[in-house]
């Protein structure tokens, strides 16, 4: 009888131990889990390349910075306390524009990020950006919940560098052909992603969905960043925001 009682006690202890281990593990996972809000800013063109053009880009150096800040403020208001907010900025573009503006734009952006209390990450190459998206954080614990891209764009390509290193072209860009390099595991299935650049709704959004299994909003037409701290608006008559390329434009 005593021996049977001991047996039951040991079984109960083992059960309790296993249950505790499972609950502790699940609890740790729950505590560790936090979504990431990621905002990406491309760089500005140089005035020396743009000054004599009819369609001049980036008179103001901070088009992609101010709009990103506005978005970050929105995110900070709605995010959970455990969520991570990261701001990735194309450094080379601002270094070169700093020389032209005779002011330290790098320090200025760092100050703005510090003021918002968000994590600032600089990048120089597209592979650095993709690497961060894929494995910058443990994506099983920190999937990307929201992504916003502020940069020059056409319907097939986001250009982090535009008319900055070479007049009128891009040397650092993310083309739709490279989107399969982005892991769909990096995103929550219900991730809210937006490309705020021009024409993204005419091709890019479909390719993004194919590559990442998440929907992305993009513009039919051009987007205008010249309203200061306001979010970009569509400047093309008849333009609109879409997450599927309309059938007539495929």
């Amino acid at each position, binding site marked *: 009888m005593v021996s049977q009682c001991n*047996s039951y006690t*040991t*079984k109960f202890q*083992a*059960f309790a*131990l*296993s*249950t505790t*281990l*499972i609950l502790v*593990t*699940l609890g740790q*996972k729950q505590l560790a889990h936090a979504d990431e809000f990621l905002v990406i800013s491309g760089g500005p063109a140089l005035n020396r390349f743009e000054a*004599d053009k009819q369609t001049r880009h980036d008179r103001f150096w901070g088009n992609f910075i101010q709009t990103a800040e506005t978005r970050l403020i929105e995110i900070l208001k709605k995010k959970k306390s455990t969520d991570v907010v990261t701001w990735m900025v194309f450094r080379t573009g601002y270094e070169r524009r700093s020389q032209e503006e005779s002011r330290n734009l790098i320090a200025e952006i760092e100050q703005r990020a510090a003021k918002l209390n968000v994590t600032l990450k600089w990048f120089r*190459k*597209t*592979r650095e950006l*993709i*690497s961060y998206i*894929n*494995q910058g954080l*443990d*994506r*099983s*614990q920190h999937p990307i919940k929201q992504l916003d891209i502020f940069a*020059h764009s*056409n*319907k*097939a*390509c986001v*250009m982090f560098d*535009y*008319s900055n*290193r*070479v*007049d*009128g*072209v*891009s*040397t650092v*860009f*993310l*083309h*739709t*052909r*490279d989107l399969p*390099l*982005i*892991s769909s*595991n*990096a995103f929550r299935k219900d991730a809210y992603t937006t490309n705020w650049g*021009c*024409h993204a709704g*005419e*091709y890019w959004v479909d390719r993004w969905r194919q590559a990442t299994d998440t929907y992305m909003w993009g513009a039919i037409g051009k987007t205008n960043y010249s309203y200061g701290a306001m979010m970009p608006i569509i400047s093309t008559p008849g333009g609109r925001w879409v997450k599927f390329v309309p059938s007539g434009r495929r």
Partner: protein
Amino acid sequence: MNFSQWLQIEFALTLTFVLCGCAVTNSSVSQSTVSPGNKVFTPERVAQLNANPPPYWDAQREFHPVHSTWGFIKRPDQEWSEALLVMLNEDTLPAPHRKLPRRDSDHLQRYRFYGYFDSEPAYEPFLNKLFDVFVLTGYEKSEVGEQLRLVEKSDAGITSSFTRQTRMRDRSTSRHRYSVEDIE
């Protein structure tokens, strides 16, 4: 402790390791790198262009009102039909037209160029194409040449709507071999 007790503990520990292990497994995404936008633009190709550099390069400006291509460049012993359509990196020296009243002031002007090819290509958004980039370190003015060709239009249909106008303008010219390829 009997076998069933060991089994229970074993089960608990196994479950724990499985749950802990998920994070490691899922996070180990393979290292991604961005492939060159175009098979033509490999480091080997640029090395080949820069190998045995000629004393100078023959260059001819061909201004285009929409595209950002600078013009053509070739070795002195090559035919103009073999010339490459290039972009100019002006970090070391501004392009010759910067000293002139307008961008098209030196249209069809020929030069002797000094410099080398950059290791990375440039993406031209209106054409949706990659181009070689020539880093200009010096130049001398030469004679005026004849029109070689306008820029090849993009057939991919994924450039901006602005390009469609350009494409119509360019329809007449396709007689030369191109140094560029569609990025898609």
